[in-house]
């Protein structure tokens, strides 16, 4: 019962701050609200017994990616005054489209109750289990992701360089 209330409160926070990300005027405020959303989602991960993913979510998203966003926004000196706006009818159309998509998704997924067995053990989200799977079954993708990071790093440096001979 306690967990249900916790889920509802965290979900409410996540949805509220996600709405503020989209509808607030100032880009810096958008970044801060998005960090709040990520913390709420990380708390949902803890509720799902996925502690490792929760910690990684906070470190990678709230720690690294959002700092990068904040850095770029402050570097480019974006604020409320420079913020471009779409026409009112286009915003209205976007909200209607999103609402219809939500209606279709919830309507089609509502009745699905595919899990018949609840052989639930707590250990699925523990770092020990995940580490074993990551370094045996998924060893090759893990190494390839390092190559991906190298390519992204080289690409970012090459793109932002002023003059390339």
């Amino acid at each position, binding site marked *: 019962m306690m*967990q*249900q209330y916790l889920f509802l409160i965290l*979900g409410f926070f996540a949805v509220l701050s*996600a*709405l503020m*990300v*989209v509808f607030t005027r100032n*880009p810096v405020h*958008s970044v801060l609200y*998005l960090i709040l*959303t990520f913390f709420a*989602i990380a708390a*949902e*991960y803890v509720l*799902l*017994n*996925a502690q*490792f*993913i929760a910690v*990684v*979510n906070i470190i990678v*998203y709230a720690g690294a*990616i959002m700092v990068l*966003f904040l850095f*770029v*926004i402050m*570097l480019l000196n*974006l604020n409320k005054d420079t*913020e*471009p706006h*779409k026409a009112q009818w*286009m915003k209205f159309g*976007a*909200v209607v*489209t*999103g609402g219809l*998509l*939500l209606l279709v*998704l919830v309507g089609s*997924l*509502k009745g699905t109750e595919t*899990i018949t067995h*609840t052989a*639930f053990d707590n250990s*699925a*989200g523990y770092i020990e289990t*995940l580490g074993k799977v*990551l370094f045996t*079954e998924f060893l090759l*993708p893990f190494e390839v*992701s390092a190559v*991906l*990071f190298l390519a*992204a*790093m080289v*690409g*970012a*440096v090459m*793109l*932002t360089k002023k003059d390339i001979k």
Partner: protein
Amino acid sequence: MGMINGIPLNWYIILSSILFCIGVVGVLSRRNAIIIFMSIELMLNSVNLLLVAFSTYHADPNGQVFVFFTMAVAAAEVTVGLAILVVMYRNTKSTDIDILNRLRG
């Protein structure tokens, strides 16, 4: 049936659907490219939440490993995307996507 901590799986499905649709609305209704990037991050996170929920309810760690890789790819994507945005700002003095309607060399 299919409950963990008394929470049905459907609740997670509905929560991530709502978050995903908010991300879609953000992409459609904003013109600032950085806000559009942030909305895409929101959509990625809602999918991650759904993957972790299914992984836990099936007691299968593979889903969470997949979330780990999604986060790695998202980090690389954001790095390159923001670099492109900085270059674009240097050329057009704006991050408005409506200026970029003629992508010529």
